[in-house]
């Protein structure tokens, strides 16, 4: 699961039928998570009503899709896919907002403990992490 901040919402009219009515949020992860490509953002389906600027927890992969299907009351197992997208009623997604974060408690300055690396943030350092923040946030590899 990824901890990140909602930075925007996506509007799309031409899309897979399974995405009809879905709220698509742009989330900037706070910490590096090993994405398959060179990106500093991810897009997640939101069913909880997260707003811009809020911290959220995003679940990636098949569990996210199954959870969304469960929320919609649909069967998680889709019928055999036909050619193209036409007539599809299932969800071709792999990221979902699973929680809206109220508060994050981080231990006091883990950077100073022996054998521990400091938290390195991809983007701006969130307020809750100020106590642990490195002086200049690096690219976070």
């Amino acid at each position: 699961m990824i901890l990140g901040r909602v930075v925007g919402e996506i509007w799309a009219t031409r899309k897979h039928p399974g995405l009809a009515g879905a709220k698509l949020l742009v989330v900037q992860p706070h910490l590096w998570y090993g994405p398959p490509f060179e990106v500093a953002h991810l897009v997640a389906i939101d069913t909880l009503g997260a707003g811009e600027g809020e911290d959220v927890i995003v679940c990636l992969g098949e569990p996210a899709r199954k959870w969304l299907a469960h929320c919609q009351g649909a069967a998680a197992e889709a019928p055999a896919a036909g050619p193209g997208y036409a007539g599809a009623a299932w969800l071709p997604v792999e990221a979902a907002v699973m929680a809206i974060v109220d508060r994050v408690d981080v231990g006091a300055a883990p950077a100073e403990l022996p054998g521990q690396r400091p938290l390195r943030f991809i983007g701006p350092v969130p307020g809750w992490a100020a106590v642990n923040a490195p002086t200049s946030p690096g690219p976070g590899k």
Partner: protein
Amino acid sequence: MLLARVVGPVWGARHAEGLNGRKVLELRTPQGGRLCAVDALGAGPGEWVLVAHGSRVRDLTVGAQVAEKDIIIAIVDGVDSPGSPLELPLELTEDDDARARRRASR
């Protein structure tokens, strides 16, 4: 899932059988990453698209026989992100733009 911008189609005379009749597009992420994805929605050069990654997504959209794990699932109209660190929309590099125009003119 991630946002990326279409550079243009990728052509291959010799390709895996599962890609027969499939349109493959070359994409750029806002951070300059490069990827290719199967498109069944008709995205054009310069458009922002939403890409989902993984064999499960592929199975659910274009079918398990397609030899590509990145699928375009939406064409983005706009991103409501004032002051976003993503700095959208990203301009393609000069080189990318030239290639996109050349491909579009075919």
